[in-house]
């Protein structure tokens, strides 16, 4: 048995801690790239949840496995577009702090 001695709850608690660390970073950081890193942490914790549920509750199916694959692909797209936007912002404002980027606000 592969999951000998490790209950499902351990994985879920680990993912929950990682998720809220990501949320903390998302709230406190000002630099756009570090905010992007926090989002990657959050997505990654969700992936751990999907995989653990798949392995423990439905080991004869593969939904969690494939959904994780698709989430990783979406994360890659999101990172590419976000970094394009960040580079464009850097060209216009010469830094990437969220507090300075308010041209479209009013």
């Amino acid at each position: 048995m592969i999951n000998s001695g490790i209950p499902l709850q351990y994985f879920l608690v680990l993912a929950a801690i990682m998720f809220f660390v990501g949320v903390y970073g998302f709230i406190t950081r000002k630099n756009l790239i570090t905010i992007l890193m926090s989002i990657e942490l959050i997505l990654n914790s969700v992936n751990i949840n999907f995989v653990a549920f798949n392995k423990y509750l439905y080991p004869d199916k593969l939904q969690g496995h494939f959904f994780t694959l698709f989430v990783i692909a979406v994360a890659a797209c999101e990172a590419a577009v976000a970094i394009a936007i960040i580079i464009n912002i850097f060209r216009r404002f010469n830094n990437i702090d969220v507090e300075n980027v308010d041209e479209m606000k009013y």
Partner: protein
Amino acid sequence: MTSNQIMFAIFSGIIVLFSILTVTTKRILRAAVYLLFVLISTAGLYFMLNYQFLAAVQITLYAGGIVVLIIFSILLTSHISEKFEATEMKKSIFSAIAAISGAILTILTILQYPFVASQAPAKEVNMDLIGKSLLSYNVDGYVLPFEVISILLLAAMIAAIVIAKKQNAK
């Protein structure tokens, strides 16, 4: 403790420690490297659960692709030796309260729910099965999300080029 439990303890320790460092460190390049450690230990967890293909995708796409992309954009937009100013005390305290109370609530809920592990035999995940499931339109086939994700990738690629292209001064 079995070897499995020791491995899990090591991986989860690395993940928790380095994810906290990722969101608190003052140097941005170090944050990216800590994020890399977190992602690689996550791949280790996938290996432990016997999902080798997923772990390989995690390493190549996340650790190899996204982190390199992030490091490139860090090098393009900030000085390596640059340090962030510390977060305001009030802001970090209130964010920590929000995050910790959310975590406690979630963990309590998880620990109270009686999950029943299924005893069904685990499915052998090999490349053959993954490829056939991705392109099959029967039950347990994933051809629709597969096609949607291909269109999304194409759209993201075009969007990234269009956005990052140098605009001509009017």
